[in-house]
């Protein structure tokens, strides 16, 4: 029996489709806890900042720090899970995971802080409400771009987040903080649960 070039091409197409599907589902599952963390933190951050506007900066500093630490812990647990104790001691797996994640998370924190500070400096003066809308829009764009590689669910979450942010900003300016606590944070939580079901 022979395998024709056509059959070989079909097999390669099937392989590529299976790999893409597997990679997407894996990405959804891995991203899910991060969206849940940030969704809850956004709800808390926007809610508290709306109730206590004087402490807005301190509240957001605490929220962002908590988010990064929780995200780091989640990624670290995933890296340990991927370690293969049969081939490598757990201590070594932990050391490698920590080493890689330290660089990754430091890089993400540094780039994000620099980008947002630079953008706000260029656009200054901006109101607190504008800042509160700008950051979710950047996050939404990030998810949409990520979705081009990792799957359509990220694009959907990004678009939903952008629409909700713009809707609250233009239609309910007086209640924007509360709106974002409920619908910005809520969208991320629902998005995280949706990714979990993939």
């Amino acid at each position, binding site marked *: *029996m*022979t*395998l*024709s*070039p056509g059959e*070989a*091409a079909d*097999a*390669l197409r*099937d*392989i590529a489709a*299976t*790999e*893409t*599907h*597997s*990679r997407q*589902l*894996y990405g959804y599952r891995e991203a899910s806890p991060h969206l849940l963390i940030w969704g809850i933190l956004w709800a808390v951050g926007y809610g508290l900042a709306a109730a206590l506007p004087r402490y807005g900066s301190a509240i957001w500093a605490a929220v962002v720090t908590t988010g990064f630490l929780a995200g780091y812990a989640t990624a670290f647990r995933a890296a340990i*899970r*991927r*370690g*293969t104790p*049969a081939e490598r001691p757990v201590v070594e797996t932990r050391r490698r995971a920590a080493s890689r994640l330290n660089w990754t998370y430091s890089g993400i924190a540094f780039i994000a802080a620099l980008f947002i500070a630079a953008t706000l400096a260029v656009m200054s003066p901006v109101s607190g409400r504008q800042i509160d809308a700008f950051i979710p829009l950047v996050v939404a764009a990030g998810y949409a771009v990520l979705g081009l590689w990792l799957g359509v669910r990220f694009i959907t979450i990004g678009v939903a987040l952008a629409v909700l942010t713009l809707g609250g900003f233009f239609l309910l300016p007086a209640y924007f903080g509360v709106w974002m606590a409920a619908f910005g944070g809520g969208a991320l939580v629902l998005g995280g649960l949706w990714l979990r079901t993939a």
Partner: protein
Amino acid sequence: MEQPDAVIHQPLRLRIMATLKALPRGERLEFVRLRVILNATEGNLGAHLGTLETAGYIRIEKDFNGKKPRTRVSLTEAGTRAYGDYVAFLRAIIDGTGDTTHAN
């Protein structure tokens, strides 16, 4: 590679290998999740996983997650190499540089 690897050549086993290959190195996939992804029956998937494990291409680990029994599957180094060779074999056929015969 003159002959394709008969272990991987079977369609469901090839899809199992492709699914596992797409994961980060060392990552394990739960049996129930693999069954859903591949839309396979439990018995059929179990039999093909057994064949791949016997060939040394995958590792099957059984443990408990809390009180629930859990079976997880991952690709071995030998499995990664065999899968790469099989994909190269298919590409060679398309390029016209490979042997097109395969054991049935």
